[in-house]
């Protein structure tokens, strides 16, 4: 197999040079300046992270590098890859550059792969699209497959000779992302653009993918442009960081310098907002479980929830023999990765899922014999905050109507009373009462999530279930919403079941934390004890995988936890 693909050696100038890039989108509401004036360089073997919150223009910048902008976009400036300006080259030339000089790793591995072709075919497709640089001839199918196997081996897929013939669904999420990276690597491009490569993955898988990317850089000298909003990932991987805000570069600095001494106000704010495991814990200083004198609101004993399987397949056990209690005034944090059953438990308590075994007692009602009619009176005691604030409001109704809905259903107040109560609630979640007349799309994500909290609290419930309430929000917004949640919980004194995949977030809010793994509660205890001194292997691995937003500390942790992660 021949791989004499010419790539500039170290020191031969930058692999990527962006100069004064401007990108404008034509929308129904006029032009939107997504990227205003961005200049940056990426040197061979360097990992440059572009960080920013949603709307900062980081993804648009990344897409410009590969010439992937939609038709409605107009770009100006220069994006030079090995001397070719991506913005002005012909479509044919651009096709040559893609894959050979620069490749992309997408956010969601399960949609980036075509389910009806084998992964080998998909990797080979990119290889065969380019003529062999050595001979200038087309590459035969056999050679392409050999190269695909080589690429799979590079990204650490075990037994690549067999697995090259597998279809995407036969791989796990993390392995799929490895395959996507293998496809990007197939032609040995000098530069990989990774757009949120780990956002869709669980923390433990994220740690593996980050290690893989680091290896690629170290072994093959590939430069990486890493687009992410996660400061932990940046601290773990990046050499240099570019902070973007509203289409402009705010600050550019080596990773160590940026985390230690941020220069700009915005960067400081952004870093301060990142939740840091072990700081600001809600259970700080506690030695025993609080609120145990009060009434027990939720009690699960050996709770089992199954989803019926298709014909002939056994039922899927989403929750398997879980026991816990939530007492009055207590915040119970439920942590777990995707598929751990945490959301199922939350939904079962709210009567959205049926329980199939054991016992789940909610406010004195046994959920095993659930009937909507008999449970309905209890609904006013339970508030629910959903994950995606954009989707949990009816787009046709005003915020006021949405927030008032529980009130109208349960107590039939006069319009004036309802309005007054909505105003009060909006103010207690720090939104102006005048927002009641707005429509959900007119609010930002953070404002919507606050309105969602107001809706959950309007009937003064005894129990609040919050299912990943901040995972759809930007870091800085998340920090504000979490602070607000904490304050309101203290003020209203409701009990809460706080569900999240983010250990740091759960630790900030919860007095008592339960860790779920594949439907089983593997560990529960005081927040600071679970985080500080985990007993179960899985908890240990989970904590070890969580990157800390500090490059030096993260490097130390990486070494320290190597054994746990691979064990």
């Amino acid at each position, binding site marked *: 197999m021949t791989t004499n693909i010419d790539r500039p050696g170290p020191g031969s100038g930058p692999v990527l040079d962006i100069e004064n890039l*401007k990108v*404008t*989108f*034509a*929308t*129904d*509401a*006029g*032009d*939107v*300046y*997504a990227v*205003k004036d961005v200049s940056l360089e990426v040197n061979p073997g360097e990992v440059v992270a572009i960080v920013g919150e*949603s*709307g900062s223009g980081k993804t648009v910048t990344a897409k410009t590098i590969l010439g992937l902008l*939609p038709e*409605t*976009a*107009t770009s*100006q400036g220069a994006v030079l890859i090995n001397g070719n300006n991506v913005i002005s080259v012909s479509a044919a030339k651009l096709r040559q550059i893609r894959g050979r000089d620069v490749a992309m790793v997408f956010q969601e591995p399960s949609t980036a792969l075509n389910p009806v072709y084998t992964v080998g075919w998909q990797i080979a497709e990119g290889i065969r699209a380019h003529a062999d640089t050595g001979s200038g001839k087309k590459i035969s199918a056999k050679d392409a497959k050999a190269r695909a196997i080589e690429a799979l081996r590079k990204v650490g897929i075990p037994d690549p000779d067999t697995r090259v013939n597998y279809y995407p669904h036969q791989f796990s999420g993390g392995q799929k992302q490895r395959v996507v990276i293998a496809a990007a690597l197939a032609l040995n491009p000098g530069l990989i653009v990774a757009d949120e490569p780990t956002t869709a993955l669980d923390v433990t898988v994220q740690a593996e993918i980050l290690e893989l990317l680091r290896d690629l850089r170290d072994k093959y000298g590939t430069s990486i442009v890493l687009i992410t909003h996660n400061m932990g990932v940046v601290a773990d991987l990046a050499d240099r960081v570019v902070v973007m805000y*509203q289409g402009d570069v705010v600050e550019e600095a080596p990773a160590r310098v940026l985390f230690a001494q941020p220069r700009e106000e915005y960067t400081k704010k952004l870093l301060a907002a990142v939740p840091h495991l072990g700081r600001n814990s809600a259970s700080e200083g506690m030695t025993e479980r609080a609120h145990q004198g009060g009434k027990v609101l939720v009690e699960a004993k050996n709770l089992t929830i199954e989803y019926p399987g298709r014909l002939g397949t056994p039922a899927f056990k989403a929750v398997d023999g879980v026991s816990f209690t939530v007492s009055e005034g207590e915040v119970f944090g439920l942590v777990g990765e995707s598929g751990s059953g945490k959301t199922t438990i939350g939904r079962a308590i*709210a*009567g*959205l899922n049926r329980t199939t075994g054991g016992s789940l007692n909610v406010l004195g009602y046994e959920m095993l014999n659930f009937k909507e009619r008999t449970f*309905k009176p209890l*609904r*006013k005691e*339970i508030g*629910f905050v*959903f*994950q*995606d604030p954009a*989707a*949990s*409001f*009816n*787009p*046709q*109704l005003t915020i006021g109507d*949405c927030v008032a*809905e*529980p009130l109208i*259903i*349960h107590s039939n107040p006069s319009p004036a009373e309802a309005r007054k109560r909505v105003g009060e609630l909006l103010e207690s979640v720090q939104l102006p009462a005048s927002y009641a007349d707005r*429509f959900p*799309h*007119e609010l*930002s994500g953070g404002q919507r999530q606050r309105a969602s909290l107001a*809706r959950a609290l309007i009937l003064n419930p005894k129990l609040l279930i919050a299912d990943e309430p901040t995972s759809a929000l930007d870091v800085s917004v998340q920090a504000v919403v979490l602070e607000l949640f904490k304050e309101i919980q203290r003020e209203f004194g409701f009990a809460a079941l706080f569900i999240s995949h983010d250990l740091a977030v759960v630790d900030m809010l919860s007095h008592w934390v339960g860790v779920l793994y594949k439907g089983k509660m593997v560990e529960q205890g005081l927040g600071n004890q679970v985080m500080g001194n985990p007993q179960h292997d899985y908890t240990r691995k989970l904590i070890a995988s969580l990157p800390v937003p500090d490059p030096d500390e993260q490097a130390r942790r990486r070494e320290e936890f190597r054994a746990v992660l691979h064990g």
Partner: protein
Amino acid sequence: MDANTVSGRKQPFIYRLPVISHFRTSVGLQRAMLVTGLVLSIGFLLTTVLAPFIAPYGFAQLSDASGTFPAQQPPSAAHIWGTTVGGYDVFSRVIWGARAAAVVIVVAVVMSIFLGVALGLLSGYFGGWLDRTLVVIADAIYAFPSLLLAIVMSIVINHGQSSFWGGIVACSISISVVFIPQYFRVIRAETIRLKAEPYVESAKVVGASSVRIMGRHIFKNATRTLPLIFTLNASEAILTLAGLGFLGFGIEPSSAAEWGFDLSKAIADASSGIWWTGIFPGAAIVLTVLGLTLVGESINDLNDPRLRGRRKSGGKTPAGGPDSNGAQAALEAESRVL
């Protein structure tokens, strides 16, 4: 357009109406298509309303003060589009024919929308045996050729022949039977999708009743595609009506003018060089269907941000100052779709 239009308060009601909002967002070829469609459709509607003033004679009139109309006259000053074998004035019958077509569209489509939407909501929301039964029935109706079904219905209801309203109702019902499954399917699919939306679940958690959830949360969100199906079905309704008339199951020539009927009577004329009896009713059908289809297709394209054309962005340098929230929100909304 000003970038602030989305960010401020809601736009005036008139700009949010289906066709008007579409017109405002369209550019280039899409706007030309929409405008052509609108001109044809509005022309059709005006003809319907103003038929008594435009048409020189009644639809069943065979004589006037100067005596009986001659049969098969080529176009002349007295009969600008000529006369038929039975002595009817072609121009008057084409104009009056718009009326029958319009009434059938309205009655048929309104009937099928009401039933189709209601059944779709119930079936999608509750599921279970009700859903299964209704889907099987809808599928069974789909399996029939729609014209055959319309003929059967027409015979069942009116024994094939009838007066103006009898004929109209028979035609409308037979057309509705064909259309109800279409509305039913669309609304059912949307309802099933919306049922899993967090805002519907949130209403459930809050304790809202099924009626409230269907009426307040699902109905309005599920019916956004209706203007599109409406326009497309309207054109199909005209074709079905014309088909029924052509086969002789339509309305008697003495009780109303109907294009399909006139066309079928013009078959014999075509071979003897009498072109005016067939061309004009035929052209009326083609233009009306074309107009409605163009409107429908344009709305379809304009509803989809991926298909919607836009003015090229200015390429000006940013004027400074942050973008308006509205423009940013529009961009976000779009990138979600993309």
